[in-house]
């Protein structure tokens, strides 16, 4: 039987918003994982941030917390400490993670909890009507910044690499099969897996949209030097530059669930803290 991941909540994303396709890809990924018999529906726990992206919380029939703005990552890490046997996924935006919660992003790579971050990057604070985020391109004009953004955008892939990420992937919110493939690999990765989803917002920052022509797919890369080159190809600013999709970098590092004796014991015995 196909597990039911649907909810009764009314979907309030704009018609045509690529968030609909992210939702579809997440459902396909998780349905497959459940149908493979590896996981039960109740094994998953999600955290979502605050923003357009976070509405995904209401549209997925999975356990989880709809968190505070910027704090979906530490809350997820806490869930994983509270029960290392859960499959934990976080959904967050570029405003949420690269602005409000940036410290947690960097530390998440250092701690390397076995969980997945799916980041909907639309280069805009959309739910709050289009203010610039750290990945908005230079010159982006919005109501709160009528003079335009003066700074060069942040390159989150480079930041992740510098933070010793063990899994960095990029995918396209208009490409469901590629998202499903990437999410599946991210969830399978042992450690903190970071997937950046390039997601157009149809309402705000349209200049940042339609990057499909720049995109190309790569094979899984495990070489740090090559990863740095791939990260450098696109600076989140210009209309030029190639945007690699796929696993930009993957490496093996022990996870805290193995290193902390308390957590590894819960993992080994499949026990809860309360049964310790």
């Amino acid at each position, binding site marked *: 039987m196909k597990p039911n991941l649907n909810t009764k909540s009314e979907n309030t994303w704009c018609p045509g918003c690529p968030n609909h396709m992210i939702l579809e890809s997440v459902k396909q990924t998780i349905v497959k994982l459940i149908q493979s018999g590896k996981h039960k529906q109740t094994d998953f726990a999600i955290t979502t941030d605050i923003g357009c992206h976070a509405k995904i919380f209401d549209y997925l029939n999975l356990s989880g917390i709809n968190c505070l703005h910027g704090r979906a990552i*530490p809350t997820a890490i*806490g869930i994983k400490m509270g029960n290392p046997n859960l499959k934990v996924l976080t959904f967050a935006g570029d405003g949420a993670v690269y602005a409000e919660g940036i410290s947690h992003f960097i530390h998440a790579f250092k701690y390397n909890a076995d969980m997945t971050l799916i980041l909907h990057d639309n280069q805009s604070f959309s739910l709050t009507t289009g203010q610039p985020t750290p990945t908005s391109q230079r010159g982006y004009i919005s109501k709160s910044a009528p003079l335009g953004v003066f700074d060069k955008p942040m390159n989150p892939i480079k930041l992740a690499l510098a933070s010793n990420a063990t899994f960095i992937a990029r995918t396209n919110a208009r490409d469901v099969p590629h998202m499903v493939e990437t999410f599946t690999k991210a969830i399978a990765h042992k450690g903190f897996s970071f997937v950046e989803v390039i997601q157009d917002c149809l309402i705000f920052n349209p200049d940042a949209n339609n990057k499909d022509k720049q995109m190309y797919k790569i094979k899984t890369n495990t070489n740090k030097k090559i990863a740095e080159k791939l990260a450098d190809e696109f600076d989140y600013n210009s209309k030029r530059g190639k945007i690699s999709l796929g696993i930009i970098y993957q490496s093996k590092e022990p996870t805290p669930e193995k290193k902390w004796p308390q957590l590894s014991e819960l993992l080994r015995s499949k026990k*809860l803290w309360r049964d310790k």
Partner: protein
Amino acid sequence: MRLNIIIGGKAGQGINKVSQIVSNVLVGYGYFTFNYRDYQSLIRGGHNFNTLSISDVQIESHEARADILIALDERTIKTHRQALKKNGLIITADEFKNEGRNINISLAGALIKIFGIPLVELEKEIKSQFKEFDKAIISAKKGYDSQKIIHQLKKLNNKPSILSGSQAIAIGAKNSGLDLYIAYPMTPATNAMNELAKDQVENKLMVFQAENEIAAANMALGASFAGAKTMTGTSGGGFDLMGETFSLQGISEIPLTVYLASRPGPGTGVPTYTAQSDLNVALRAGHGEFPRVVVAPGNPTETIEKTSEALYLAEKFRTLSIILSDKHLAESEFSSVESSNKTPKFKIIRKIPGKNLVKNSSYETDKFGNSTESYRLTTENANRRLAKYATLKDFIKDKFEMIKIHGNEKSKNLIVGWGSTSGVIKDVIKDLDAKFLQVLYMKPLSNRIKKELQEADNVILVECNLTGQLGRLIREKTGIKIENRLLKYNGRPFHTDELKNLIEGMI
């Protein structure tokens, strides 16, 4: 009987070792000790001192005037000479220069002789503390032989044990089966974290240092959601950072217990000193309107009990529980023969991920846990939170001690106080016509407080803060303004002799 010893020196010279050895010997000899630690925010140098108070009855405070001054450096003599009583004695570390690292053991030996306690008692203590004790015992004897008996103490039958407020937090948490303590270091909360971290694997719990207090609080909430008994702890600044998460607790109703150990603010204030100035923020941190428990123990025994109650209430009512302490309670060493009440045991039986589908949210939610903007549900949920607080209040009233009355119950002189100030008030009123109303639960506040205030002729509020925060809270809840106030806010707690003079002048 009461003796007061000031032991001073530079940070790193080992003044704590002197008071620790002496306290242990005294306690073993049946005496009660109270050790106040006054230290600066530096690692080496400066001027630190302990005031070790000794009595044949239980005490929870120290005096300003000293019978003996132990000086590990010159500055100690300069700073504390005027506090020495007439005929007071000064012992300097200079006398034991040749003992090297063991100077503090010689000083302990000197004190033990002054009290007329047999040398073997000290030797026993040293052997229990050091693996290589031969040299230490020689140094102890040097100190011992250098003095004459001045205050002959006879052996008593009491069997007190020594605890700090920080150790008590850890004991209370372990009694309740704590699984996770997630925090970021901040004096004076850190010692509780250290205590829990010590034998974490053996105790089947985990202590995790997050990247900041915001992360700590949100991780704690996540872990609690997943079904672990979880606690976080911090001081005022970190508590401010956690405010938004408290508010998330309020709406998501994921149980959360927070240990707040205060120090003088605003800002970084005087970071290694004490104050009771965070009652307001404990009562109000976090936007929106939601229930919470704020409980303020006054000594380690109460801290053990109230920590367990806080954890119990957080889980039972899926609420925010705040244990409010401060530097004076957290870091002073108390000795006591009291045993704590039975721990209210509990198991997590709510729905948890892994077993069930469970959704909690920072949004107002419908019955599935999904976001809603319905005016009907918004009202219903708010009403439910209010009703929960009413149930919680009734429950606490029936089950737990919300206030305590000490001293002469018939007296018309009523002292009102709370937290770490309770100890000194209890000691002061021993020889006065006064009764002391100690408030333990700040939220909910006991209905009995109003009656007590109405029955008294003379009410005096004693707090270590600038604005009389408990007094204001009581006025808010009862309409009664306490006019007589003794407020101290220089970072130092009240001394027994100091407070006694002040109160005597008012009754």
